[in-house]
């Protein structure tokens, strides 16, 4: 059975769709009231984020758009030092979408929300003409505990140590592999980093900045930190974890893992005295087993990000130009 324009009309078909798919899998006391707004308790420093998910294909090795939209939203809140509590989901469904596929995505979304400890408290469904596509918009809400250290890309200090929670490029490579029909075992790493961030923030470790490594890759974030904090950064490419198959995939297409997106990896910039503790903490957290110390913050006239290459030379990481076209020759 497929989505038709009738499902978007607001009438009987819409109610049935909502009951049988969304309400069924997202059930919680707030949502079940089916009011126009979710009324929820909460006070303090509010963190709000919004994101839209337009990935194709909808399902790929290691995940789907449903799991992705929770991870992306939750991770954005976490990186600001907030504890994620609630999300909303606005679905735009294209006519022709298989309802069984929609349900699979919704179940995945619900499972990931449960893992991340967030409630889905409001939603919307619209249907447009098309050929079976699906887009999701989310808003995420969290609260910043008073006892958490303030984190910001502008707070990196000379001497700070940079940690990366795992291998680069997995998600981007999985999506491209799916689109190109490339046979390999690469899986998206989409994951909610709730436990890792909680461990870091509650440990007393002096965390100065955190960011999840999404579109634009590690290089983009490091450049942003350097500019915001008025420092330079220096990393060693030999220390940056990249899965062997992902590395070969990148070589085949002329892509650079330092500029590729992940959906379940983060960097943390911490005081150098706390570096080993942070490493242990992140390695001991879910999704952090490959955490590595990859570099340091240095003082320099420029805001450059220096990378020591595997040959022992130095290159400066520039901005990502263009859309990262696969290069062949």
């Amino acid at each position, binding site marked *: 059975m497929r989505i038709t324009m009738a499902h978007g009309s607001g009438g009987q078909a819409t109610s049935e769709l909502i009951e049988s798919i969304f309400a069924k899998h997202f059930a919680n006391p707030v949502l079940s009231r089916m009011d126009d707004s979710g009324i929820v308790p909460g006070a303090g420093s509010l963190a709000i984020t919004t994101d839209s998910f337009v990935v194709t294909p909808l399902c790929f090795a290691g995940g789907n758009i449903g799991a992705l939209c929770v991870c992306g939203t939750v991770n954005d809140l976490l990186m600001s030092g907030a504890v994620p509590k609630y999300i909303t989901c606005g679905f735009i469904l294209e006519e022709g979408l298989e309802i069984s596929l929609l349900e699979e995505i919704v179940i995945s979304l619900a499972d990931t929300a449960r893992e991340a400890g967030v409630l889905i408290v409001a939603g919307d469904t619209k249907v447009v003409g098309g050929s079976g596509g699906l887009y999701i918009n989310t808003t995420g809400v969290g609260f910043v505990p008073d006892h958490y250290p303030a984190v910001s890309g502008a707070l990196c200090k000379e001497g700070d140590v940079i940690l990366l929670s795992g291998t680069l490029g997995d998600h981007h490579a999985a999506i491209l592999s799916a689109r*190109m029909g490339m046979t390999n075992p690469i899986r998206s790493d989409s994951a909610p980093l709730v436990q890792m961030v909680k461990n870091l923030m509650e440990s007393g470790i002096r965390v100065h900045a955190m960011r999840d490594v999404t579109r634009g890759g590690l290089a983009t974030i490091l450049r942003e930190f350097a500019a915001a904090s008025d420092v330079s950064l220096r990393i060693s490419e030999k220390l940056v974890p990249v899965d062997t198959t992902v590395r070969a995939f990148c070589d*085949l*297409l*002329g892509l650079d893992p330092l500029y590729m997106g992940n959906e379940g990896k983060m960097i943390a910039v911490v005081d150098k005295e706390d570096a080993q503790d942070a490493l242990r903490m992140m390695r001991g957290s879910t999704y952090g087993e490959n955490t590595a110390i990859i570099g340091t913050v240095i003082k320099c006239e*420029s805001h*450059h990000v220096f990378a*020591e*290459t*595997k*040959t*022992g*030379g*130095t*290159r*400066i990481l*520039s*901005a990502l*130009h*263009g859309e990262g*076209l*696969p*290069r*062949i*020759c």
Partner: protein
Amino acid sequence: MSVDYRTFLREYDGKPIRIMEVCGTHTRAIAHEGIRGLLSPKISLLSGPGCPVCVTVTQYIDTLITISKVPGTTVVTFGDMIRVPGSTQSLSEARADGAKVEMVYAPYDMIRLAKEHPSEKYVFAAVGFETTAAVYADLLGEIIASEITQITFLTSLKIMPPVLEFVCKTNSVIDGFLAPGHVAVITGSDVFTPLAEKYHLPFAVSGFSGEEILLAIYALVKMITRQEARVMNVYPSVVTPRGNISAQSEVDRYFEKTDAAWRGMGIIAESGLTFRGEYKRYDAGSFGLYEDVGTHLSCQCGLVITGKKSPEDCPLFGRLCVPERPQGACMVSSEGSCCSHYMNRGD
């Protein structure tokens, strides 16, 4: 190896040496691995005409764009070609205007496209040096065997020895060449020997990892200081003196040498490959594409490509000419000298 070649290269204090590399993949690898910083300031690396996208003249791009706008025809290309500016626009801009342009990873993907869309005509932007010419020759064999008639090629195929000779004749400051390792897989390393002997310059055939490039530079510096003008194969696990004979004869079967226009250098005799004889039926209009109209009056691509100027010497570099708004081909391709310099030196 008993010699510490890294220390030798870092501490070299003899006569200043200028080495030219002539392969876009070397240009990129050298920038990407930060090789220049590992060399003594007395050893300079120049970038030569080794990026096939960068040496393609504007008339070729303009012709591709015209073809892409013909109903029922799709232009197929590798990624980098799509952003090279012709005299008025690039293929990517033409695509935004509605022209049909597809990108593939390998020329071989054309066969699948043709079978999936039997009534569509495909024109492949066949750009490259000897390495890729062999791939096109192999593809053509398959196209003929499969009796596919809807694929043709607009070729901008070039070969190295004539342009190397051009550089040797016009640029007297080069002391030695880093020779392209994968071109040599096809041609054999002996192809550089006549040039080494005629111009008394050493050639080191090099692989593409940072370590292999350092070894090849070491070999060159040593040969230069000993005044040895010969070809040394520093990539012996892959390159042989005579190369891949059957690949050479495949190329020879379908292509013949013709004059070709190189951006910034004009026409160099017998430096290109176009379809021969009965195979001209696979050609989409490649012969005689010689016009080269610079997009900006101050564009120095021609001088950069021949190693006469470095990217920083161009008044447009990093100001009017950046990867987002390339004024010339050297900035478009990630293997172009200007783009490589820009991307790895900060902005």
